[in-house]
């Protein structure tokens, strides 16, 4: 794939913006992710925000919850498109992995990100 994937973080309130700031602070990568909040949106308005954030480029949509308006709008938009994939349960670990693996196909990048995010969830002895 010639063009690196774009990551779009789709969240309630300011979670997406905060995750983007954290990724930039840790990696120095500023151009891989775009934040989208569902604040004040019905499904139509959120779809417009998402379309604008995706910008017609191949993308992975990182959604905060596995249900709700962020998910429904994202899945509707990605349905039937090979240049778009959706991951739910976004966390910082999956985004950190994603920004360094943007040369994959969207579906492969989504699977890889989901695995990286899952591996980060632990209950270490304290």
């Amino acid at each position, binding site marked *: 794939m010639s063009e690196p994937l774009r990551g779009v973080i789709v969240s309630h309130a300011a979670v997406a913006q905060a995750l983007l700031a954290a990724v930039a602070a840790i990696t120095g990568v500023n151009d891989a992710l775009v934040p989208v909040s569902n604040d004040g949106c*019905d499904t139509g308005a959120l779809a417009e925000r998402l379309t604008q954030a995706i910008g017609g480029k191949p993308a992975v949509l990182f959604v905060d919850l596995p249900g709700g308006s962020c998910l429904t709008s994202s899945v509707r938009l990605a349905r039937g498109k090979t240049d778009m994939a959706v991951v739910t349960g976004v966390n910082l670990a999956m985004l950190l992995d994603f920004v360094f693996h943007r040369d994959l196909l969207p579906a492969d990048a989504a699977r890889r990100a989901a695995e990286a995010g899952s591996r980060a969830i632990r209950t270490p002895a304290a």
Partner: protein
Amino acid sequence: MSIALYRIDDRLIHGQVVVGWGKPLNVGFIVLVDDAVRASTWEQELYRMGVPAGIDVVFASTAEALACLPDWKRDPRVGLLVTGDIDTLATLAGDSQRVPRINLGGLHHRPGRAPRLRYVYLSDVEAAQLKALAARGIEVTAQDVPTAPPVPLEDFT
């Protein structure tokens, strides 16, 4: 029990409905009344994804909801009914005997609508519809989450 909440929310089933209201009300079933969603199994799966396993989801058309509302009201579990627009709930309401109160949970910006509250945008026609429902004896308030105070209709129309 009965239907504990009749909600108008253009996001239909989402976090505020399932978690915000569903948890404190101990909801056992959610009825989504929407003709378009009722006609699409794919859309239904999408909305079901956000609902925990212990809560049943019923997808109904407006006509089906009119027929089934008495059964849902007799259900021993706590129910929550949501529609995406005022028209649908007004059709169901008929009079205050069927729907005693309406919760406006989210109607967002569209052309022709003006902001009334942070999460309620209404056209003049929609505001008049809500006033007409109130005139039938139905209590109409806006309240996005249960921890927020309900806002009486007269305060935003």
